[in-house]
């Protein structure tokens, strides 16, 4: 044990002397997690906060334009900004220049056209039921409103907004049509009892997240970025650990160790222990930032999963995956430049395809398949399962299995190379 402690102590001394490595392993991911979380936070809010900012330019001379605007506002899904003086040309300029992404143009004859359409439909219905005589058909101009959008908006998001407006418009038209029906039949207004039945008896949609725990974690920029950049930080230890191994080998320290009555496995074990501590420290620091510092600057707070043992297991396996990868690069690289260059580029690529920068679920399907080869993807999957899906062991099993296989494969390759080089 004394030999192991001496080796670990030596590794720590080397580590604290590696200022660049420490900066890359701690400062870089801390900065990244701050910057990317702040940048992504607005995007996540746009999708998740049911409050989409929209400019309404209501030129309608009747009251239905206001009714539509009020319906949108009262739904809670939209935050309305009235800019009735804007011209159609200026709407486009406003969207391109300001932060607003959407604008709704309601034309000046909106109420008139909608009322005429409702009247026409109700008259036709009553004549079909032979309640009134068939009236002559009055040609109808199609009612049109215009939804302006910023070109950066994705199609699916724009379509869902358009769908929402259409449903509110539908409700407005239905009400108008029923009112017209009653009016044609000689009523001044819809009886209160019927009004409730017509407009309040809607089918409710309950939304349940597929989450095995009782708590409902909301996917937000923090829940994605904190584990994602923690994983990136762990894997970026390739710069420090990989070059540490290359340096020891090139300096001849490994050869000297062969002439000392001590196991070479001890050297490898001490490196693993040291860098396991580093990886867990990285996780603790970045998680603590998410939990305690993010809320202070207006970012969502990191909510920890209920399965703490699962969190520990995934963290340990992620750390060992990162350590094994770094050792593998260090063992096979012939020079420090190779270890640093190859290690850094590989991690950036594996991070990109593994969903660290952008979650894999927004990637095309073929990229999602390719992403499966990235160990960073599996580490992130483990954290997603813990943070967003309740962390059931059954759901964690594929991640755990992949990471164990990855670690084993790396260790076998490391052992083989060291055996060939006669160090073991």
């Amino acid at each position, binding site marked *: 044990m004394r*030999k192991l402690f001496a080796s670990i102590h*030596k590794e720590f001394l*080397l580590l604290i*002397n590696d200022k660049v490595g420490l900066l890359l392993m701690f400062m870089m991911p801390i900065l990244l997690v701050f910057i990317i979380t702040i940048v992504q936070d607005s995007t996540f809010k746009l999708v998740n906060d049911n409050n989409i900012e929209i400019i309404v330019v209501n030129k309608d001379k009747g009251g239905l334009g206001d009714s539509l605007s009020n319906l949108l506002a009262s739904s809670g899904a939209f935050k309305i900004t009235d800019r009735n003086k804007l011209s159609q040309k200026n709407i486009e300029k406003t969207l391109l220049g300001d932060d607003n992404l959407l604008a709704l143009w309601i034309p000046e004859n909106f109420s008139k056209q909608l009322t005429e359409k409702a009247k026409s439909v109700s008259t036709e219905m009553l004549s079909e039921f032979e309640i009134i005589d068939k009236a002559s058909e009055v040609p109808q101009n199609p009612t049109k409103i215009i939804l302006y959008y910023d070109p950066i908006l994705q199609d699916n998001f724009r379509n869902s907004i358009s769908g929402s407006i259409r449903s509110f418009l539908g409700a407005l038209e239905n009400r108008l049509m029923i009112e017209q029906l009653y009016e044609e039949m000689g009523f001044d207004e819809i009886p209160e009892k019927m009004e409730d039945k017509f407009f309040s008896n809607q089918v409710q949609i309950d939304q349940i997240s597929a989450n095995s725990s009782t708590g409902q974690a909301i996917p937000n920029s923090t829940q994605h970025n904190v584990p994602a950049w923690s994983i990136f930080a762990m894997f970026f230890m390739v710069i420090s650990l990989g070059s540490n191994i290359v340096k020891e080998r090139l*300096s*001849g320290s490994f*050869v000297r160790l062969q*002439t000392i009555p001590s196991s070479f496995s001890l050297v490898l074990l001490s490196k693993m222990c040291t860098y396991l501590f580093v990886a867990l420290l990285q996780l603790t620091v970045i998680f603590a930032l998410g939990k305690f510092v993010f809320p202070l600057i207006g970012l969502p707070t990191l909510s920890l999963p209920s399965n703490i043992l699962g969190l520990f297991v995934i963290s340990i396996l992620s750390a060992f995956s990162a350590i094994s990868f770094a050792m593998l690069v260090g063992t096979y690289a012939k020079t420090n430049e190779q270890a640093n260059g190859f290690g850094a580029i590989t991690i950036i690529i594996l991070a990109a395809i593994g969903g660290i920068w952008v979650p894999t679920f927004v990637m095309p399907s073929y990229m999602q398949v390719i992403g499966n080869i990235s160990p960073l993807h599996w580490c992130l999957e483990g954290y997603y399962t813990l943070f967003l899906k309740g962390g059931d062991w059954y759901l964690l099993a594929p991640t755990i299995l992949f990471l164990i296989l990855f670690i084993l494969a790396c260790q076998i390759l490391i052992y083989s190379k060291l055996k060939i080089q006669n160090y073991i």
Partner: protein
Amino acid sequence: MTSVIELHSVSKKYAKSTRFSLEDISFSIKKGEKLGVFGPNGAGKTTLMSILCRIISETTGEVTYSDGNKNISNKAFLHTIGYVPQDFSFYPELSPYQNLRYFGTLYAIPKIELNTRIEELLSVLGLHHVMHKKIETFSGGMKRRVNLAIGIINNPSILFLDEPTVGVDVQSKNAIMAYLEELNKKGTTIIYTSHHMNEAEEFCDTIVLLDQGKLIVHDDLKSLIKQYNSTDLQALFLQLTGIEYRD
């Protein structure tokens, strides 16, 4: 004198090589001997040293080790040897004290004994005043002395030195050679390679001369100079190995 290492028809062929790096080498190293291993580049000196230190194994033949009385195991053998490679095989980011404490602990030297040994070695080699400074700030000569200190931290009875004075100033070379003489007087067997023929001639009492993996001569240095009617080791070296480049 009793033999501490005996080589019996030792040959070595590396996996990717078409020729033998060492071929049918047989000789023995006596206890307390100062043996110089010489040869042109590519002669097989490093391969021979690596086999003797058990860094690599021989392809055919056998090497036996004894403590003077009986054959000993690999682990026991490693406790008895010290190895000073040509490269600076230590951690330059750390201090001499930290390096020596690390390597000394790997030899399982008890803590108090190790501290005494470190103090003693650093004093003798003129490094005590910089024992807590980072080695990366040292001169080449100081680094060589640290390299030597690590190689002898376990007080070895057999010491292997691969070019221990290459690239150092006269003062450091003097200090190193003087200390090696002192170690030898205390009974340490020294196996040494160098390209400094004058230094080697002064230091060694027996030489092994290799060329293209073959043993050319192994004998007492003075007898060889006399036998080949040479003026010194350098003349003998050129006489036996020729003047053509080997690399």
